[in-house]
């Protein structure tokens, strides 16, 4: 019945409404609609095939658009990619993990200001940060000097907008391995580096007395840390304790920041001072490491921000490669989807030869026949596309969680795109057999061969 309405709306045979032609028209519609009402399962199969193909296309596109963000997150497991130091600091003197600089030389930065980092334009890209303050201490009175590194593990930072941001070394050095547990914020606890612990025979639960100058603290070792770096030979303690021992309350000397960045390209490497206002806006509003550095510098006075290039550049290079790879994979999947859907479409139209022959025998022109079929295929594509998008979103969720452990951020722009794709593929798939079928003699087809 739907077919009759559709046909009459299109008015194939309009304009020839004499008495006998009226009867002719009605007969035509009746025969045609009868033949189309047959095999509704065919239609359902086409729509289902279209839906599945579009579901795969949707899922692939959603995941592909998300891959860049996901991998950027994964790269944060490389640790901090930005280093903040006082603009006017003295040269660090480090051998074997010990900084031999006198404690009172050089510049310091206020740790109370760190909350401002979460107010910059790209605040949501600041995954975490950790301040460091090193103090040479003595374990036993008069004993050899060891390095004490003060930092945060999981510290609540007050952000000017009233919220709290919990961060610390967990974000900037996630590969550090602790046997035991980390020290609690503000407690008289510490971690012992693996080499140091071996040397001084420290275990979880041991108690050490550290003093520097006039200050002393008794710290309980809650864990043994191994990093592969200078920390293996040091004691890690909460920043506040280091600040107290050094006689520099509320200060730090070095800040590591882990930020989600966009790989650097020719545009981002330009000097911002030479950019036009439009370009400058574009650069500022892209999460390049250079623009994030500038924004941090604007918030924290007296600092110098630079990229830890080993991490930043390596990440950029690999991300670009992998991004390219992922796009190719996506295109491959889309191509396969289009072919599969096209094949299904072609198959189902191919067997409408009998109906096409019938229509032609009754006097319908090729244009009229094609127009009807195309309209029908587009309707099916619409139904298939909507269903396919819904299924695709579910599939994308499942894939995202399976591969990355987190569902992808959905992009609604894909909905019209998927519908368009469905329409195009269904159209292309049906045009070929339509073309072929229209050139076939109706007679043998109607005889039932």
């Amino acid at each position, binding site marked *: 019945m739907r077919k009759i309405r559709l046909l009459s709306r299109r008015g194939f045979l309009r304009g020839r409404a004499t008495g006998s032609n009226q009867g002719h028209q009605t007969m035509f519609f009746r025969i045609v609609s009868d033949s189309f009402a047959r095999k509704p399962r065919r239609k359902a199969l086409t729509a289902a095939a279209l839906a599945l193909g579009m579901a795969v296309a949707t899922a*692939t596109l959603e995941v592909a658009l998300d891959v860049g963000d996901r991998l950027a997150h994964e790269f944060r*497991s490389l640790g901090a990619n930005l280093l903040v130091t006082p603009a006017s600091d003295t*040269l660090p003197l480090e051998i074997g993990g010990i900084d031999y600089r006198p404690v009172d030389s050089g510049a310091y930065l206020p740790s109370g200001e760190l909350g401002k980092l979460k107010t910059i334009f790209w605040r949501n890209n600041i995954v975490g940060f950790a301040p460091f303050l090193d103090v040479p201490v003595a374990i036993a009175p008069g004993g050899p000097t060891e390095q004490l590194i003060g930092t945060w593990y999981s510290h609540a930072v007050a952000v000017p907008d009233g919220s709290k941001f919990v961060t610390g070394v967990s974000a900037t050095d996630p590969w550090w391995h602790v046997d035991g547990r980390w020290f609690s914020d503000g407690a008289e606890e510490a971690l012992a580096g693996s080499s140091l612990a071996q040397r001084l025979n420290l275990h979880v639960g041991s108690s050490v007395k550290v003093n520097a100058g006039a200050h002393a603290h008794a710290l309980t070792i809650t864990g043994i840390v191994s990093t592969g770096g200078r920390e293996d030979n040091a004691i890690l303690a909460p920043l506040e304790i280091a600040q107290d021992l050094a006689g520099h309350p509320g200060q730090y000397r070095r800040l590591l920041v882990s930020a989600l960045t966009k790989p650097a390209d020719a545009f981002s490497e330009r000097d911002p001072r030479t950019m036009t206002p439009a370009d400058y806006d574009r650069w500022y509003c892209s999460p390049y490491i250079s623009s994030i550095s500038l924004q941090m510098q604007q918030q924290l006075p007296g600092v110098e921000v630079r990229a830890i290039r080993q991490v930043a550049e*390596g990440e950029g290079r690999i991300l670009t490669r992998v991004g390219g790879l992922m796009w*190719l*994979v*996506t295109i491959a999947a889309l191509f396969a989807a289009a072919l599969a859907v096209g*094949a299904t479409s072609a198959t189902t139209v*191919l067997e409408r030869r009998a109906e096409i022959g019938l229509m032609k025998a009754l006097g319908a022109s090729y244009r009229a026949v094609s127009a009807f079929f195309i309209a029908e295929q587009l309707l099916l594509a619409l139904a298939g596309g909507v269903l396919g998008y819904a299924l695709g979103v579910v599939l994308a969720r499942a894939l995202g969680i399976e591969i990355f452990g987190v569902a992808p951020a959905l992009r609604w722009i894909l909905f019209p795109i998927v519908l368009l794709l469905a329409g195009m593929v269904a159209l292309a798939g049906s045009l070929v057999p339509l073309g072929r079928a229209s050139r076939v003699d109706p007679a043998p087809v109607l005889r039932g061969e």
Partner: protein
Amino acid sequence: MATRSMFLRILWKLLGASRGRLAVALVALTSGAAVSSALLNVNLDAERKLTQEFRTLGANVVVAPPSTGSDAALTGAGVMDSIAGLQSPRIVAAAPYLYVAANSGTQPVILAGTWFDQVAKMNSWWKVDGNWITSQDSHLQCIVGRDAARQLNLLPGSSIELRSGEHTVSLMVAGIVTTGGAEDSQIFTDLDIAQNLAGLSGRVTLVQLSVSGTPPEIEDVTKRLAGALPGLDVRPVRQIAAAEGIILGRIRGLIFWTIMLILALSMLGVLASMAALAMDRSRDVGLMKAMGGSVQRIMRLFLVEAGALGALGGTIGFLVGVVLARWMGGRVFGVAISPRPVVFPVTIILTVAVALVGALPLRLLGRVRPAEILRGE
């Protein structure tokens, strides 16, 4: 014998009669096979290429003496010889470092002695303003980290005098290096010069190595190194290894699931064709059953047909896939991907499996009841 040739005769004519549908099914199978095999080739090669990329992130293995005191401990002489003696092709670079506390005038600074050609291989991110130092140079030269240069007022071409204990050395600044890391506050020179300045001939503080390969291969080299260097710590640099493992795992997952999806779609296309084919053939099957043909014989016919289609589609698809993979590799890595022979049998097996499963509608024909079909719709 006559029956065997009759079987083939029927099969041949059957294929000819269903040309159109089978062509569509073949297209579905071939495209699925092509894309799957291309992705498999790309995946196998991509991992290798990506691990190479990760090697440019710096050293992934460090050799150092187990710390015995807060003074910088030193390795024994000949450690570099032992490493070279291993002759492992996986060791892409091995750079020794000797750190010396020196003074320039009243300003203390760390001098690091190393082999620049090895450092160049490992640390791709070192950006040098000025000139690099090659081992051919006869002058006494150094490369200065940018913070150190700022503190000591040095530019490329300047001269700096360093003193350690009773030894002094005068070096010309060849270039300034910016890394964003600890190197920015150090001065680098040739290992011999640093060893002479410190009076520690033949000793080094540690050795950084860049070892190529998959994580298990790297671990194997680490073990062999530990065996060749008793008394020293051979440790992986966990920072890079962890990230590398995660990223490669994600990519593997992505490609795996993409291949699964594509095969599913391919099966869809095949199913559609086969469903149409089954409808076409239902009358003939009903007829054959009415004539007393056993179901097994008929099913065998269809099975052979589907299997042959799968094998054909898999072969053509594989060849197309090789071309596709080369192109993809060129786009992403700038290097053509060499196809792996193992992908061929895998592709064939997968495609034949898809064809056989997709031929399900034909197998359902076995249940056709001749009377219903022959009654004529």
